[in-house]
Structures are given as C-alpha cells and as structure tokens.
C-alpha cells in the first residue's frame, strides 16, 4: 500500500497522520509539499491533515484548497484514490468541493478541545468497515471551525445515501444534525472533524481511531 500525506504551511497534524498510516500499514507515507503539482505514481491513499493551513487566514482551509497540490488530489479522488481529511483537512475538502457543505465557526464561539463520543453511522465504507454501525467510540476534537453546515436538501441527501459516517453523541460545535464526518458520493473520500490519528495507541489514552486506519489498509490490500 502506498500512501501520501499532504503538507501545507501551518499544518501541525501531518506527522501524526503519517505515524498512524505507518503504524497500521508498515510503510512510511510520502510527504507531499503543497506546491507540488503532481502526486507520486501509484498512491492508493492520501491524507489531508489537521492543523492551520496558511494560518487559517481568510477562512479555514480556503487557501489550502486552492493550492497546486489540491488539483492533483482532486484528480486522484475522481479516479478512485482514497482520501482522508481530518479536521483542517475536512475544511480543505469542503472548500475544494470534494465534499459538500462548509465548516463554520463553532456555534458556542469557543475553541473545543476534548474527547467526544461519536456514533458510527455507516460501517459499509472502507473507512468504517472495522466498526459496527451504531457503535459508540471516543475520539478527541480540537477545532474552532467545526460547525458543519449544508442546506436541508444536501443534508437529506447525505442521510438518505448513508454518507454520514460519524455523528457526535452531543452537540459539540453546532453542526447540522450533529454531523462529525461525511463521505463523498463514491465513498472514497472521508472528511471528519475529530482526530482518529490521536487515538491509535493505548498510550494516547484510547485506541478507537486505530480501526479506521486498519479498515483502510485491509480494504486497500484486498483491492490490490
């Protein structure tokens, strides 16, 4: 399995995501700088990490979404390459149009940094195959702009098509219908605000994020 992690100026979870990819797959991902116009050959999985790309100036994820490398990511995603966007990565994916909706300032104004309970809504995707639908897991969040917004028709479509991957067990940031993570229509792109890469080892205080990466690696090896 060959993976890549995109590095934007200001990203601060790129190494965490790379460590998670390597811990589960046994291979180091390629770190790809935002100015690159092409991805290395044969990449199966792209990580768009959390952090504060471009300082979150203008809007969270807005400038990163327009960076040269994101054109290559969009092309790869259209061809079926798997893309995981975490936190700022989720913001980048909505800003770039790879996922619908937008992430706005938390309804409660405050930056939220704590463990939250999530419900796994869909266990059919490659990202959630190692979870049971309806299962409750605990994953940390750390964000200021995690309030997911989409119009009612889009929300209905996401729900109807089983594209809500994770939902908060409580209102964390004002997100529409407590949505914490969504899939694209083809099921190969997942964006989520909580940080699964921060709970892959017992020393992190939890391992509920590990199965997301295990499901991905297992699914990718099956497809190979």
């Amino acid at each position, binding site marked *: 399995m060959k993976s890549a992690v995109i590095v934007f100026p200001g990203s601060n979870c790129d190494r965490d995501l790379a460590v998670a990819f390597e811990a589960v797959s046994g291979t180091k991902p390629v770190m790809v700088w935002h100015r690159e116009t092409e991805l290395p050959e044969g990449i199966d999985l792209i990580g768009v990490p959390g952090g504060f790309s471009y300082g979150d100036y203008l809007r969270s994820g807005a400038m990163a979404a*327009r960076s040269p490398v994101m054109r290559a990511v969009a092309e790869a995603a259209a061809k079926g390459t798997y893309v995981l966007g975490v936190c700022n990565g989720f913001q980048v994916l*909505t800003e770039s149009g790879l996922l619908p*909706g937008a992430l706005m300032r938390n309804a409660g*104004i405050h930056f939220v940094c704590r463990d939250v309970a999530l419900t796994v809504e869909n266990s059919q995707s490659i990202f959630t195959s190692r979870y049971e639908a309806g299962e409750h897991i605990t994953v940390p969040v750390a964000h200021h702009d995690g*309030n997911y917004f989409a119009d009612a028709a889009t929300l209905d479509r996401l729900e109807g098509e089983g594209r809500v991957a994770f939902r908060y067990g409580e209102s964390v940031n*004002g997100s529409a219908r407590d949505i914490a993570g969504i899939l694209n229509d083809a099921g190969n792109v997942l964006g989520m605000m909580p940080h699964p890469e921060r709970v892959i080892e017992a020393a992190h205080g939890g391992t509920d994020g590990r199965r997301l990466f295990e499901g991905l690696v297992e699914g990718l090896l099956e497809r190979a």
Partner: protein
Amino acid sequence: MKARVFVTLKSGVLDPQGKAIQHALEGLGFGGVNDVRAGKLIELDLAEGTSEADIDAMCRKLLANTVIENYRIEAVG
C-alpha cells in the same frame, strides 16, 4: 484602481462572532442592539482596467465561500 469586497454570512446562517459582539455591546450598557452580523472587508489594489468580471471571479473562486457567504463589490475612486 481599488475595489472593496464585503463578505457577509448569508441571512439565516448563525453568526457566533456577531452574537459575541452584541453581548459585549450589551455588557457596555448599550441597549437596543437587536442583532449584530460581522463580516469581512477585503481591499484590493488592482491593475488599471481590471474588469468587474475578473473581480467577481476572484470572489467566487476564493474570497467568499458561496455555500455560506454573500459578497458585494464596491469600486473605489
């Protein structure tokens, strides 16, 4: 030539920053502030002859997120 772009949240979209400002104004004793909406002002210094269509494209492609925001362009001078 210069242009100003005003970016505002669409009506109906919750504006937590506006709400915080409203509460702060109330805290200072200003009554009668029914609502506050905060937005962004972006000033562009542009080459002479930049078309309105180009500025509009800048807004749509980067300056505003049209899922949640409206924008208004004002030519200056």
